[in-house]
């Protein structure tokens, strides 16, 4: 409540990068009376993994959903400010939301494979966008995507089984395969490991590191260790404000803002 009345806090650290993929300037998000994100500005670079950390309810997931306009489906959500993808405002009238979401994919907290076969799950995106001219091409896309998601060896003999029949970690990798099947430029990950056990988590983290060669990844996580392991840059959120941003090792070894330090040392959150 108190934060609602205060002025937005100034962000500590450099929010800009050269040649960003995405760039946010002065973004505010409101749900009805709730001011979820306040005056947020940040650039996201090509082929980096940027982690967003902070106590729960601080607006990280909300922000993520703004980046591919998934907030559009929530009634009452109002987004102001500018967010650009390759220099184009994604909230512009001319920006097509279908096109945007094909370029900015998303992986969710809880694995959400469609109630279809493994093959159909991965083929879903290519099918709706008409990416494959024939079945052979589609087969190839599915295979490459599953390979890149590190799932191919485990499922290649049972592609027609239900995606929901896989284990939690496999489901989450299936969702990642599904996302990369449409070759997005940015992949948003909303606590992708919070529903998984440590072994499955480790596999996803390895996968993220591999994916970095081809994609930009923006990951929200509750786990500071995870942020430290997978990301190159880290942004710390507190009650709707972006408090501090910087190279991950710097944030973890030498935080400049007192709130960041308190959080990292476990004083709250």
């Amino acid at each position: 409540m108190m934060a609602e009345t205060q002025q937005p806090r100034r962000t500590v650290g450099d929010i800009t990068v050269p040649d960003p993929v995405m760039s946010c300037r002065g973004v505010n998000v409101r749900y009805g009376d709730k001011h979820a994100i306040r005056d947020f500005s940040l650039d996201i670079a090509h082929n980096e993994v940027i982690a967003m950390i902070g106590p729960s309810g601080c607006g990280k997931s909300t922000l993520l959903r703004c980046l591919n306009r998934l907030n559009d489906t929530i009634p009452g959500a109002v987004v102001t400010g500018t967010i650009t993808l390759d220099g184009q405002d994604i909230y512009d009238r001319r920006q097509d939301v279908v096109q945007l979401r094909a370029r900015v994919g998303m992986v969710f907290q809880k694995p959400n494979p469609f109630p279809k076969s493994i093959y159909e799950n991965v083929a879903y995106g290519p099918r709706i966008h008409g990416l494959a001219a024939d079945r052979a091409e589609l087969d190839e896309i599915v295979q490459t995507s599953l390979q890149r998601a590190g799932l191919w060896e485990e499922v290649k003999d049972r592609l027609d089984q239900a995606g929901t029949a896989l284990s939690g970690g496999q489901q989450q990798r299936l969702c990642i395969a599904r996302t990369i099947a449409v070759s997005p430029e940015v992949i948003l990950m909303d606590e992708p490991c919070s529903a998984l056990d440590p072994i499955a988590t480790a596999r996803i983290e390895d996968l993220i590191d591999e994916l970095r060669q081809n994609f930009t990844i923006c990951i929200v996580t509750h786990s500071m260790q995870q942020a430290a392991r997978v990301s190159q840059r880290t942004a710390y959120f507190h009650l709707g404000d972006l408090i501090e941003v910087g190279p991950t090792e710097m944030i973890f070894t030498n935080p400049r803002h007192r709130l960041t330090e308190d959080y990292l040392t476990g004083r709250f959150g």
Partner: protein
Amino acid sequence: MQTSTLILVLLVLSAVAWQLGRARAVRVAGGPRRKRELHSLPSYYGLLTAIWCGLPALAVVVGWHLLDDHIIQGLVVGAMPAEVQALEPGRLSLVINDVRNVIAGNVSADAVAPAVAAAAATWSRLESLSRLGATGLAFAVALAGGWFTLRRITPALRARNQVERVIERVLMGCSLIAILTTIGIVLSVLWESLQFFRMVPVTEFVFGTQWSPQLAIRADQVGSSGAFGAVPLFAGTLLISFIAMLIAVPVGLFSAIYLAEYASRGFRAVAKPTLEVLAGIPTVVYGFFAALTVAPLLRAAGEGIGLEVASESALAAGLVMGIMIIPFVSSLTDDMITAVPQSLRDGSYSLGATRSETIRRVVLRAALPGIVGGVLLAISRAVGETMIVVMAAGLSANLTANPFEAVTTVTVQIVTLLVGDQEFDSPKTLAAFALGLVLFLATLLLNIIALQVVRRYREQYE
């Protein structure tokens, strides 16, 4: 004593028993100050006494009342002259009807045959005897029950537990009525059907294509045996149900989708209750609507394009039945698609799917089993629907797939065969029960499959 008076008196007796039991409990405990000595509150002792006084006696009265008519009738018939007893069952029931009329005073005793008058006298005598017996027995049972319970009252008697056990049994008895109803349906329909199949072979009924159940009056008349081939009825039922589903499924499905996923709040606030109104309208109103408005409309439209539409066409009945089923399909669809988790929708949107792609390929796909189950239930409703077809479909058993012609259905024939005088020994009346058996079995099968499918689906997302 009249049964209603008797029951009233028994209730009063029970109230008295309650007082006595309570008072006795307090007394055996050693006065009001020592009520704590008792195992249960005094009122439980009263309740126990009242239950034992009232319940068995009430059971006696009800049982007696249910059976005495049969027994008396048997006795009276037994006492009648041999030639009357030798009559075939249909004639005999006419004689019994005469006897009843004399007793009721509708017919003067002088105006009937002496045998009937005598039987009426016997009947009245037996009836008053039976009433006397019922009253006596009921009182004896009530007093005995109350007295024995009073005698049993001691501080150690676990009155509350006993009362609760009785009440639990009563509750259980109430829930058993569901089973009894099913058994009642099966037995009554099956019994009469078996009698029917003794007169008409099952194969003729199931595979015959001629349906004209009106029996000839005289045995020597041409075509005296009615034809009981039910295939035209099955075909008619299926045709009308098919037309109904053709209306109800698309309209119900699409309107549910539109209202759940697309409609603005204001439009939904108007449209949803409006469509729900359809669910509350009695079927007889739909029947009237079909006959009054839809059938003439279709006929006029048919004439306009040079089509011959019967005034009682399958199309009119099916169309209106479809309208009736719309809210059923749409509310089930609505349940099913709201049960699909938001996360699946998010997953689809975040891949760049449009809204309709998400609905068609993900939401509907996920909800499909539930919707199929719902549609099966809807078919079972269409098959069993009566009033619309009685009022808007015809009586002529045409074996046709042409929706512009008149067809008849299983339910229409049940009604036609049973409304009016019923003789429980003519195949005409019994055929209705055979049709009822088919109807019951068909809907039962559909329901069981549908409920199973729907339950599976619900478990999937719970």
